[in-house]
């Protein structure tokens, strides 16, 4: 389900079936490596939107957590922790953070359920290749999520 009234209405009536949140972590940066930073966000938004589409009955695609790359990771962590707490308090059992920003990888064991995937310049790929590539990445997100559901 998406973060829009139509979907959330459904969520409110079917709460017991929707226990998973997909939360994209998207960096912002206007200085060096800006283009790369934009790619990281674009890629993650595309794959998480597609994963949501296929798992829409149990997953909410949360609005992205955005942050300045230049700021200390420690601060993002604190803020993110609050977001997560809110979700747990509201009954969500699974919260997945998806990102292409490698910074998060350094504290992987602290955040748990981090899905990291490297961004690629999608705009340089042809349609076919791009489709396959996205599908592959969406597939691995879905595998991670559905295998946790089975436990």
């Amino acid at each position, binding site marked *: 389900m998406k973060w829009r009234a139509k979907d959330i209405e*459904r969520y409110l009536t*079917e709460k017991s*079936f*929707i226990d998973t949140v997909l939360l994209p972590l998207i960096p912002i940066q206007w200085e060096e490596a800006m283009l790369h930073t934009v790619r990281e966000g674009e890629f993650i938004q595309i794959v998480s939107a597609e994963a949501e*589409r*296929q*798992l*829409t*009955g*149990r997953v909410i695609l949360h609005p992205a957590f955005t942050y300045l790359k230049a700021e200390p990771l420690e601060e993002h962590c604190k803020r993110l922790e609050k977001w997560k707490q809110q979700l747990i308090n509201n009954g969500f059992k699974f919260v997945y953070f998806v990102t292409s920003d490698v910074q998060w990888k350094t504290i992987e064991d602290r955040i748990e359920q981090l899905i990291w995937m490297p961004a690629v310049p999608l705009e340089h790929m042809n349609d076919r290749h791009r489709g396959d590539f996205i599908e592959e990445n969406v597939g691995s997100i*879905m595998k991670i999520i*559905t295998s946790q*559901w089975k436990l």
Partner: protein
Amino acid sequence: MSKKEHDVSRRQFLNYTLMGVGGFMAAGIMSPLVRFAVDPLLKGKEGAKMVPVMDVKDITNEPQNKKFTVKKVDGWHKFDEQQIAYIFKKKNGDILALSPICTHLGCTVAWNDDPSHPNQFHCPCHGGRYTKTGINIPGTPPPAPLGVYKTQVKDGKLYLGEVISRGGS
């Protein structure tokens, strides 16, 4: 003389201009009316738009997952949406193209990917299951069979149209 000519042309100019404005205004008033009159027709056409998906000779008795793109409009947002159909031939030779959208809460089902329930469609979200022809299996969450695509065969190709729901039970 020359002044008169000038006058006329100025009046003409004004006339044209006013007519022009009037014309635009009339068009402005008319166009919603015309749209209302024509819209249902346009919609009818759009709904019936069939997309070629595969060669009929390649259709087997085993459901095959085929992807295709359709143009969609969601409010003001126009986009290409990828759709999936599971296509196979039934025992009697009829072609069946199933929509993989689970009738419970809309997740995408897969064919035969659950070893404990072979030859069924299986929903990853809450364990919904369907038979090969898309009939929901009692005791699992889905309230209705999978939708079926409108099909049409032309020049050896299978065309798919909109999804028809098979109701709830």
